[in-house]
């Protein structure tokens, strides 16, 4: 069977976006996986292309160099046209090898498994301080503002050398950047402000280098100021948006799965596996990862034409029964062997994944231990979900104990 890219007619389907359960991807993904694993689709920004929903195909799309990352971000008002535009300086998630390799190599040494383990005591200290403040405040508190957001923000600020005192500004701009319905003007404005903020910092580090990643990059002399700014913006946004949402959404998810929570409390050694399972189950990069075919590629019997956009759904791949034979629609903190796609796949697989793991473990372990009676302070359907953001999660999570 050979299908070709629809040319004169619009694809009839739009990417599924509506969830019936706050922890499950839209139900249509199951049908797509079963019936149309490579499906013609119209995306939220109006572009036409293909949606790939099976685990194996997602891995193929993300690791095959015939698919370019140059238009990697899905958003309304984004760049149009079939020819991938040159990525903004330093934005290496939108570059292909060997350009991408140059940036990645400068950074990988900072994020190794060993480095992140060495960082764990510092992360645990930050976690304990947030929990002290929370305990002193008496419930209910918003777990996002009190706990889930400060932890990764403090850590990435420390690592990068960004003053945490400026968090209000960068957190606001970063939220605008990852909000789906920001107008192009709002998006440009927030991105400009973020770049200006980091650019100032780059200049300051050039004058007065300190012990942080940005200073090291400045001193390496490998990157221009423009590139340094792009890298800094990227790490700052990625460093707090994603992990903050994983911490808050994981907490909500465990509170809504009391038997799983009880199992985890009864056996804290399950935490490493539980973190992998939560990453798989919740898959917060909710609309998937975009690639552009650099040549005609055949995938699952479909001819994907050069220039076509392909979106690989990480959340769908992570629920694929062909790959996770043991009830992937269920959260199972004791699940063994969870090679999930939550951090993506291929050369762009999340650079900060070991940091995210270290933060999630420290945060969730200490939270559960410190507040044995933690519970939601509002009915579950009143928790405002981040359906409108590139990174899924909760806007707020009122909890008490």
């Amino acid at each position, binding site marked *: 069977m050979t299908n070709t890219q629809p040319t004169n007619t619009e694809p009839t389907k739009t990417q599924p976006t509506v969830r019936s359960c706050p922890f499950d991807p839209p139900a249509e993904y199951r049908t797509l996986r079963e019936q149309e694993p490579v499906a013609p689709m119209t995306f939220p920004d109006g572009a036409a292309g293909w949606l790939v929903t099976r685990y194996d195909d997602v891995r193929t799309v*993300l*690791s095959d160099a015939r698919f370019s990352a140059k238009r990697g971000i899905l958003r309304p008002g984004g760049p149009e046209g079939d020819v991938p535009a040159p990525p903004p300086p330093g934005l290496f998630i939108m570059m292909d090898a060997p350009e991408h*390799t140059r940036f*990645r*190599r400068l*950074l*990988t*040494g*900072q*994020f*190794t*498994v*060993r*480095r992140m383990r060495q960082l764990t005591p510092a992360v645990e200290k930050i976690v304990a301080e947030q929990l002290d403040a929370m305990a002193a405040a008496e419930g209910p508190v918003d777990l996002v503002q009190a706990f889930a957001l400060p932890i990764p923000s403090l850590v990435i600020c420390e690592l990068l050398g960004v003053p945490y005192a400026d968090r209000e500004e960068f957190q606001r701009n970063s939220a605008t950047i990852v909000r789906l319905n920001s107008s192009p003007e709002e998006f440009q404005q927030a991105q400009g402000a973020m770049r200006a903020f980091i650019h100032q910092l780059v200049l300051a580090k050039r004058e007065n280098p300190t012990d942080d990643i940005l200073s090291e990059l400045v001193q390496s002399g490998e990157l221009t100021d423009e590139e340094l700014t792009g890298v800094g913006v990227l790490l700052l946004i990625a460093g707090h948006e994603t992990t903050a949402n994983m911490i808050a959404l994981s907490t909500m998810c465990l509170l809504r799965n009391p038997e799983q929570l009880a199992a985890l409390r009864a056996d804290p050694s399950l935490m490493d596996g539980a973190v992998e399972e939560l990453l798989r189950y919740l898959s917060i990069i909710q609309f998937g990862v975009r690639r552009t075919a650099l040549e005609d590629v055949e995938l699952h019997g479909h001819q994907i034409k050069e220039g076509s956009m392909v979106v690989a759904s990480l959340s769908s791949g992570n629920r694929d029964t062909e790959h996770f034979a043991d009830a992937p629609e269920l959260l199972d903190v004791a699940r063994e*062997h969870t*090679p999930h796609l939550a*951090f*993506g*796949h*291929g*050369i*762009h*697989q*999340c*650079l900060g*994944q*070991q940091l995210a793991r270290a933060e999630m473990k420290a945060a969730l372990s200490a939270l559960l231990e410190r507040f044995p009676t933690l519970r939601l302070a509002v009915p579950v359907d009143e928790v405002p979900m981040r359906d409108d953001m590139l990174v899924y999660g909760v806007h707020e999570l009122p909890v008490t104990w």
Partner: protein
Amino acid sequence: MKILIDEGKCVGAGTCVLAAADVFDQRDEDGIVVLLDADPPHTSLPQVRDAAARCPALAIEVVE
């Protein structure tokens, strides 16, 4: 079992270290994979296979 690694492909994601810490490590300077044992005991085959399967950059080859 023989393990072949392609340093040029490695993107330093560290998933191999999580999967088989006795066999893989990362260089401190640039996070690139280091093979601790190119011909590990047969008992570590499942972990090594797992590491190769998970490597996002297809940098690990296991010859059995």
